[in-house]
């Protein structure tokens, strides 16, 4: 992968991001990947004059992650998205949609997790059948 | 303040840009990607089109010798026609006309070609 990758833990996440900000890194985005039944990996991508830097955070699904949106305001959107799609909770969000950014209020599943049944209405498959 | 004036005067005096569509039909471009057409008599039912279709709107059944296609899910990418080894699948230049009822296009091959097909199937591997 292009750019330097650094593994971090939830404890030093905020410290590292604050340091990134001081070093004039620009926030790019977060990527969340499900790596096993219990764990996900969150990649924080930063950029400074086309030099990428990534922070890799591996956590268990049920834990809550500190939000970096107080440091980088732009992060609130993607953190809400991960909250919606993977069910990882972020605390300290600047604007918290509480899992309603993309989903309706009554949705309880985590659509992007492979190991959880995907919410799908039965009739939507009928098109596929000839 | 009224900097747009020359432009609108030019429009007013010049030709209209409008294509009078239903009255004057412009021919499609040479490689325009339109409707999919299958010449079922040549079709070998190899199934490559069905495997490659990104929209998965084609289904091929080798044994029954049927080729079915859902025109309302087709995204006109042309991958199926490009990958068709027998040349039976063709992409027309003209787009498919609007319709009132959705329908599946199911084509049944002649039995002889189906027999041919089962004999010569092994060549094109599925990706």
């Amino acid at each position, binding site marked *: 992968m292009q750019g330097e990758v650094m593994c971090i833990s939830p404890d030093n996440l905020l410290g590292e991001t604050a340091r990134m900000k001081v070093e004039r890194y620009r926030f790019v985005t977060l990527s969340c990947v499900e790596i096993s039944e219990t764990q996900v990996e969150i990649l924080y991508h930063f950029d400074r004059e086309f030099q990428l830097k990534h922070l890799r955070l591996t956590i268990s699904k049920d834990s809550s992650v500190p939000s970096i949106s107080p440091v980088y305001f732009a992060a609130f959107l993607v953190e809400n998205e991960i909250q919606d799609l993977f069910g990882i909770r972020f605390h300290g969000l600047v604007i918290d949609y509480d899992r309603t950014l993309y989903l309706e209020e009554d949705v309880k599943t985590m659509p992007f997790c492979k190991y959880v049944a995907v919410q799908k209405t039965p009739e939507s498959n009928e098109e596929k059948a000839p | *303040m*009224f*900097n*747009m*004036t020359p432009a*609108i005067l030019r*429009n*007013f005096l*010049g030709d*209209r*840009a*409008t294509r*009078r569509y239903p009255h004057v039909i412009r021919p499609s471009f040479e490689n325009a990607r339109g409707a999919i057409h299958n010449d079922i008599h040549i079709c070998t039912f190899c199934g490559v089109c069905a495997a490659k279709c990104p929209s998965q709107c084609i289904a091929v059944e080798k044994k029954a010798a049927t080729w079915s296609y859902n025109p309302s899910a087709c995204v006109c990418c042309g991958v199926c026609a490009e990958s068709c080894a027998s040349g039976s699948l063709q992409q027309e230049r003209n787009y498919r006309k609007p319709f009132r009822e959705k329908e599946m296009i199911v084509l049944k091959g002649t039995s002889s070609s189906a027999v041919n097909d089962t004999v010569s199937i092994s060549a094109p591997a599925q990706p």
Partner: protein
Amino acid sequence: MINKSVLILAGLASGPVLGGVISGFDRILTARFQSRIGPPLLQPFYDVIKLLGKEKVVVNVWQAFCVNAYLTAASIATALFFLRSDLLLILFIQAVGAVFLVVGAFSSTSPYSQAGAHRELLQMLCYEPLLILISVGIYFQTGSFKIESVDAMNQPLLLKLPFLFVVLSFVLTIKLRKSPFDLSTSHHAHQELVKGLLTDYSGPLLALTEIAHWYETVLLLGFCSLFWTTNPIGALLLVGITYLGEIWIDNVSARMNWRWMLGYGWGMGMALSLVNLVWLYAR
């Protein structure tokens, strides 16, 4: 007496007939300016007939009443104009009609409609004083508010009141809902307020507002024609050129906001009218 009733009938008929044709002509010309072909000339009539045949969705009874009041006021004002009645009376009735339209829009719950109504009020605030000033100018010149006295002039008013005519063209732009003043509602609903004032009117009610709008168009163009009464061809030319000018302005300017409209309308309008009035007075 017979003469009068003919005039009234002509006035009442002018709106739905003449107004519609003018509107159709407007749309074709606008299309030509935009390098398009545009709709047929009778398009506005098709629109209105179709709207009359749509399902009636009345948001509330009050709104239906307001639309009818608006139409009645606009038609009466036009008829009075054809009767060559008092200018101030015509202006007053027309203003009452416009207020009813606003009240009708206020009575709905849609925020777009409400904001549109608010803006329409500001627009009225902008153009009504100017209209009064124009009438005052005419009074200065003819010594009466009666249109008959304008007819009796042996010299076109335009030569005496050129600046007031410019002011009238401002008012016309606002009243015809043309850019840069199509704030409260616009022809194509390409606006932040959707269709603004008219958002909640639909079907037959919208058709009625459209007809009333035609009446107003005829009335204001009639107003323009007052500036050249000595010769009917001159009047026709003046009105034609003014309307063409409106379409041109519509096509070369962006929509402005109401603060600009108030500043510009009052500033320029008042200044021009005052200059004209002082000039008249000084002579």
